């Protein structure tokens, strides 16, 4: 066997080894991210400012091994301002922790959300598994919060202005009567 053939065989074997490693790495990557998150209350999300709603989602482990220490949280973006929303007023539950999710198991995720301000928003759910570099995210859900219709200046203005004026008028009338009585 001459040197050229040896080099060729070594080259083929080396290539096969590299391909095998790449495949194994890729396989490992897909096995390590078996989590899927889906938002199931997509249609129920829209509402009016001030309303409370529940974001219902589910997290599934489609892998063959149980997964531990998963932290899930919601992320909200104001689509009009293109800015993330500070969830302090929107949701009291910042994150949900899952100790263990067995292979093939699906668990529900629920967040109670308060619609604070009218506008167009997008929402995603993120899951972080301990020891994994890449988080898992759900698909984006878009929803609209309508402005609150509790505002009624048309009704409150006459009362807010009229009542003190009426009371003041009564006060002046009584004072006038008193002065008239005194002068008599």
């Amino acid at each position, binding site marked *: 066997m001459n040197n050229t053939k040896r080099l060729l065989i070594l080259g083929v074997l080396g290539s096969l080894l590299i391909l095998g490693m790449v495949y194994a790495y890729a396989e490992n990557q897909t096995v390590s991210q078996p989590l899927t998150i889906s938002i199931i209350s997509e249609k129920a999300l829209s509402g009016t*400012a*001030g309303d409370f709603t529940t974001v219902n989602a589910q997290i599934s482990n489609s892998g063959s091994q149980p997964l531990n220490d998963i932290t899930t949280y919601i992320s909200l973006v104001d689509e009009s301002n293109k800015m993330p929303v500070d969830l302090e007023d929107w949701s009291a539950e910042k994150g949900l922790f899952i100790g263990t999710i067995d292979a093939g198991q699906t668990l529900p995720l629920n967040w109670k959300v308060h619609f*604070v*301000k009218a506008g167009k928003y997008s929402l995603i759910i993120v899951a972080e598994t301990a020891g994994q570099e890449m988080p898992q995210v759900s698909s984006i859900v878009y929803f609209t919060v309508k402005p*609150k219709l*509790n*505002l*009624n*200046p048309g*009704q*409150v*203005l006459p*009362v*807010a*202005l*009229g*009542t*003190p004026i009426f*009371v*003041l008028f*009564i*006060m002046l009338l*009584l*004072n006038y*009567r*008193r002065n008239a009585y005194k002068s008599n």
Partner: protein
Amino acid sequence: MFRNIWLKELKEQLYTWKGTLWLVISSLVFSLISYLLLTDKELSLLDQTEMMWMLAKVIIGIGLLIISIDASSIISNEFEKETAESLFLSPIKMKDFVLGKLLASLSMWFFIFIVSIPYILVTSAGTKLFFPFLIYVFLLGTIGVLGFIMLIFAISLLFRSSKNTLTTSLIILLALAVPSLFSTTLKNNSFANVLSKVNPVDNIFSSLDNVLVDYQTSLLQNGQFIFPLVLFCLIAFIFLVYASKRFKRAGVVKHE
């Protein structure tokens, strides 16, 4: 006889700037609160029932404050203007004197309540809670105000000075009102919980919350809050009886 004293005090309240000015001030406060609640975008995020609850607290809070100031001077003034001596020389019973003054102070609360009706109407528009709102503000306010008037009258008869009575009354009102503004988290403590259950102002606000926010509108469902209020009135009445007897023993002109 108490009727004459009541009508005399009522005329004094209505025909002077003192009494009617309180009504103008209370209507201005109600206007400001209801206007802000129904026009401010941030405040309008509150649920409508919570807006009603807030207004109800303001109505009763203003009522208690004005009545405390009014009741502090209504008896003490007789000593400070030196009219008490001539008043008690007439064939007037202590019972009639106190009852007449009490009805006059209570009338002031009724006037404040009447002024608040348009605001109650406009804030509860669109809900079915107008009548429970109206009835419970009247009921709880009247019981609370009655208890406070009796307590202040007792202090008045003991001190015989409007300045001292007013200071003491305002301190008592403040001491009772402040814990009722604490959040539910602060009330989780067992001691705070007991204090909250015996505090009349807290019971008024909790009952309003029960009616307006939780829709528990029957008297039976609010008995747990009304009973301590009635008990407070009873204690205030006993204190008033004690103060009246001590006043009679000491005489109208107090010899130091």
